Each structure stands twice: as structure tokens, then as C-alpha cells.
């Protein structure tokens, strides 16, 4: 492998990592605050993709603007879903099977409503972004770069919100110690609802971004679900930086895995990795490092 090939692979791994981080972060904060494994995340992503697609088809809106618009729309949508379904679940400080199955049921509903509306043929948003930016022998796909920048910006904004606002402090407190947080007056219900809205907003946003890169159908999002979970497990549950870290590792392994594994088997990498990671680092690599550091 030449240096140029290596750098090209590295760049595509980085761009992929940004995307993966955007996919995983919504699931992470919901899991962190409510201990709900949100399988409906895939459904929200799918809706985000079609949302962007419809705006582009009917209003000829720039997909980038569509993606940004998806944030508030899906925020409200997520709050609605929380109000309608999630708040009825019994509270628990560890993930329950009933919450897993509830979100799974909701995913089935979203997915099949998608099939009813859009059928099962693949759609794609075709824009001028589909060019590459040549830098000497190195090429950077423009669309990938734009999506990467958008994803990273949003992660930074989220990081800022989590650290600097009342809401962020409530979320952090609930993630770290739900009992103590409630004793000092954090409103669990309200914070949960906002968190669910925020998580859904990020799912829709990630879906809308990905619609600019990939073709999609109502089953869109499923392969990313397990990837998101790998990232959560790799990065631990406590921070946006953890998610970025997990996303980077997964993207690197997937991208460079092509060199060692036949292309047909590539989709199995993340799934294999999930099992390995769950077994070897049940608390995530970040958690592991942290513990080591704390003990030392």
C-alpha cells in the first residue's frame, strides 16, 4: 500500500467516524439518562432521511438546510413520542427488557409506515455535492466533508449544551447518579422528555445527513443500529468525547478491515466487533481507561 492510498483510507475513515458519531450520540444520551436501549433510533434515522428527501423533491430545499431543519422538527417529534409512550415505562436504573421491546415495537411501526408511504424501492438525493475535492493525489469527497463538518459542529454544540446549561447539568447529574440528582431537585420526568427529544433530533439529523451520501429505503438505519451500539459500548456512556472516540475506533477498523477481509464480509465486522467488545470490555474501553486511571 502506498502512502497516498493509506492517507486516502485514513481520510475516509475520519469522515466515516464523524458520521458514526452523529448516529451514536442520540442513542447515547437517551441510554445515559433513561437506560433505554432505543431501537427506534433506526426508525428516526430513516424518517430523517425521507424528511430531507421530501423537502428536496418538493421544495427544492438544499439538503444541508433540510438536515438543519430536521433538528427542531425531530426534537418536537421525540418529545411527542416520549409523552405518548416512553413516560409510561416503569423507571429503572438499569436497562429493562420491556423498554427494549417497546422501542422495538415502535421501530416496527415506523419502518412499516415508511414502507406504506414510500414503498420498498431505494431513493437517493442527487445533488451537486457529489463531487470530489482533489488535493494533489489525495481526494476528498465533498459531500462527505460537508457532512463531516456538520456532524462535528453539532457534536461540539451538544458538548457545549451539556456542560454549560441548566439542562446539561441535569443530564450529567442523572447519568452519573440518578438518586442523588433527584434528591437535589433534578426533575427526572422533564429532563427525560427533553433528552428523548434531543436524542431523536440527533437521530433525524444523522439520517438527513446520511441521505446526502447513501441511498435509502424504509429499512435504512438497521445496519447503523448495531454500529451505534458498538460505539456506545466502546466509548462508554458518559460523554460526547467518549462517543467520538468509539466512532473513530469503529471507523478505522471498518475502513482498514477491507485490506484483510473479503469485501462481502465487511458488514459483519461491526457485528463481530460488538460481541467481542461486549465480552472483553463490558464497561467500554473509555470506562476501562478511566477506572485504571482512578485506581492508579
Amino acid at each position: 500500500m502506498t502512502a497516498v492510498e493509506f492517507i486516502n483510507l485514513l481520510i475516509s475513515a475520519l469522515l466515516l467516524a464523524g458520521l458514526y458519531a452523529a448516529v451514536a450520540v442520540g442513542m447515547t444520551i437517551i441510554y445515559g439518562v433513561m437506560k433505554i436501549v432505543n431501537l427506534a433510533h433506526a426508525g428516526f434515522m430513516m424518517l430523517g432521511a425521507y424528511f430531507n428527501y421530501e423537502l428536496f423533491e418538493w421544495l427544492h430545499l438544499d439538503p444541508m438546510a433540510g438536515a438543519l431543519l430536521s433538528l427542531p422538527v425531530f426534537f418536537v417529534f421525540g418529545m411527542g413520542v416520549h409523552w405518548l409512550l416512553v413516560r409510561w415505562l416503569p423507571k429503572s436504573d438499569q436497562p429493562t427488557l420491556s423498554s427494549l421491546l417497546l422501542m422495538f415495537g415502535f421501530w416496527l411501526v415506523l419502518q412499516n409506515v415508511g414502507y406504506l408511504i414510500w414503498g420498498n424501492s431505494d431513493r437517493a438525493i442527487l445533488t451537486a455535492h457529489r463531487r470530489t475535492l482533489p488535493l494533489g493525489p489525495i481526494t476528498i469527497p465533498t459531500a462527505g466533508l460537508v457532512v463531516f463538518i456538520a456532524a462535528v459542529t453539532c457534536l461540539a454544540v451538544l458538548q457545549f449544551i451539556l456542560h454549560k446549561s441548566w439542562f446539561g447539568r441535569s443530564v450529567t447529574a442523572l447519568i452519573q447518579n440518578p438518586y442523588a440528582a433527584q434528591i437535589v431537585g433534578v426533575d427526572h420526568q422533564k429532563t427525560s422528555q427533553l433528552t428523548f427529544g434531543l436524542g431523536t433530533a440527533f437521530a433525524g439529523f444523522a439520517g438527513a445527513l446520511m441521505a446526502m451520501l447513501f441511498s435509502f429505503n424504509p429499512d435504512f438505519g438497521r445496519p447503523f443500529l448495531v454500529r451505534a451500539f458498538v460505539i456506545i459500548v466502546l466509548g462508554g456512556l458518559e460523554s460526547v468525547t467518549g462517543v467520538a472516540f468509539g466512532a473513530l475506533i469503529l471507523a478505522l477498523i471498518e475502513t482498514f478491515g477491507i485490506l484483510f477481509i473479503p469485501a462481502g464480509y465487511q458488514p459483519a465486522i461491526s457485528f463481530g466487533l460488538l460481541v467481542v467488545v461486549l465480552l472483553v470490555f463490558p464497561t467500554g474501553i473509555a470506562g476501562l481507561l478511566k477506572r485504571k486511571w482512578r485506581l492508579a
Partner: protein
Amino acid sequence: MKFAPGFLPWVLLAVLIILPALGLSPNITRLLFITLVWTTTSIAWNLLGGFAGQVSFGFAVFYGLGAYTAALLIDRGVNPYLAFMASAVVAVIASFLIGLPTFRLRGPYFAIATIGVTEAVRVVMSNLSITGGASGFRISEHGPFRQVHHYYTALGAAAIAVAISILVSSSRFGLALRAIRQDEDAAAGLGVNPYQCKLWTHGLAAALTGMAGGIYARYAGYIHPQGVFAFATSISILLMPVIGGVGTVWGAVLGGVIFGIVEEELVANFPQIHLLLYGTLLILIILFEPDGLLGLLRRLFRRYGRDSQSKEADQALWGRSRLEGREL
């Protein structure tokens, strides 16, 4: 009504044995066949997911492996019934390979890991040449096609599954599984080995599911990875017992029967409506009636005061108390 619990399953079995003699149309026989195959998988899933509380999204792996094993063997002229047994054996081996690492995980983590396993196995099966890869595998079986034959095979499998389910639920092994479901650590503290219990239950469930897959493959004559190994297959196998009444012998049966009939009617015309319906039903059941349709039926019966006679009979018929479903 006191003798009903022990009595009804036999009546049902007798009716199902006699039915073909009364002259069923091929369509109805097909419907019953598919329903029986689904019911077998539903009961199998319920052993692990219902009794032991380990929700798996991975049963398509066993179903698919069973289907392919039987297909490859029957295609080479092996006796079909031997082939079905081989299906069960292959599925059991797979269940150990999957279970040994994943049962170190708990509850939802186990569930997520099984999603990963299903996806990975499908990808691998789509790339193997011995199975015809993604384009599927056609079975050429010698001898005439006799639908009734297939029907009785499926009926036999379902009957075995029900028998195993009843045996487990009334044994000390079943008691251990219930203990594990409610509090794994407390169960371990009383001498139950949760890891081993889960492994064996997984194996038992896999054997039944693999057998069902084999029986289906022989009937269908053509299988492909996107069908038998599909995530949708895993979903169907999970939905049946949860909707019928998770953790009860007859809830899993009820779920399988309803699913089979509704699926056959709806899938042909409106495939999406089918899963939309089941997704909605799943949500409603989680939120309002964790004991599933069986729990709902039971409540209706209560209201009309029909079975107020004997609590024990009630327990025997419905398997467990209502409260237990809430533990899910």
C-alpha cells in the same frame, strides 16, 4: 371446567390428526402447515425468552441453519427425518457457540449481542458457495410431493415442542429458569448455575427451531439467506410468544397460531400491514397487558366469572400468575 386443563390439549391434538381425513383444500392444509411450523418456533423461543427471561433476536440463525442443513442433506438423498434431526444437532452446536460467549452478558446486552450475531451469520451465509450464496438453494427431492405428509411432520414437531414446554414448566429446571428470570444473582446464591441453565435452555430452544426450519425447507423446496436468515424471521419468532403471552406454555401456542393465520392472510396482500399491526400490538402489550393476549383472554373470562372454580386449575392452564408477566 375442572378437568379442562389436562383435557383440552388432547382434544386439540385429536382434531388436528383427524382433520386431513375430512378432506382439506390444499390452501387450508398449507395454512395449517405454516401455522404449525411457526408455533413450534414460538414455543421454542418462549423456553428461553419466556421461562428464563433471555430475550433473543437471534433465532433466525437456528431456523436458517436448520433449513440449510435439511436442504443440503435431503438434496443428497438422506432420509428427511434423519435430516431434520441433523438440523436440530447443527442448531444446538450453533447455540453453544453463540451462548458460550453471549450468556456472560445480561438482559438487554444479551439481546443486543444476538442482533449482531444474526446479522453476521446472514452476511456469512450470503457469501458461502456450498449453500448457493445469496441466490439461494433449490432442493430436489425424489418421490412425489405429498402435502399431508408435510402436515403430519409439522404437527409432530409442534406436539413435541408443546410436550417439552410442559415438561420444562413443571420441572425443577423450569423453577430454576423462573428464578433466573426474576433475580439471577439470588438464584445463583441458592445453588442454581444460571450460566449452565441458560446454555441448556438455549440448546433446547435451538434444537426445536432448527427442526422447524428443516421441516419448512423441505416443504418450500427453495430457500435463500434473505428469507430464512432474515432479521424479519427473528422478529417473527420473538413477536409470537410475546404477543400470545410470554412465559406461559399456551401463550406461546396462541401467539404462534394467531401469527401463522394472520400472516398467511395478510402477507400475501399487504406485507407491511402485517408487521405494522404486530408492532402496534407489541407496544400495546408492553404498556397495558404484559401477559399478552392470553392474559387479556383470562381477564375477560374472569369478568364473566366462568373459571372462578379452582385457582389450581387456572394456574395449570395459564401456567403462572398474572403478576409474573410484569417481571419482564
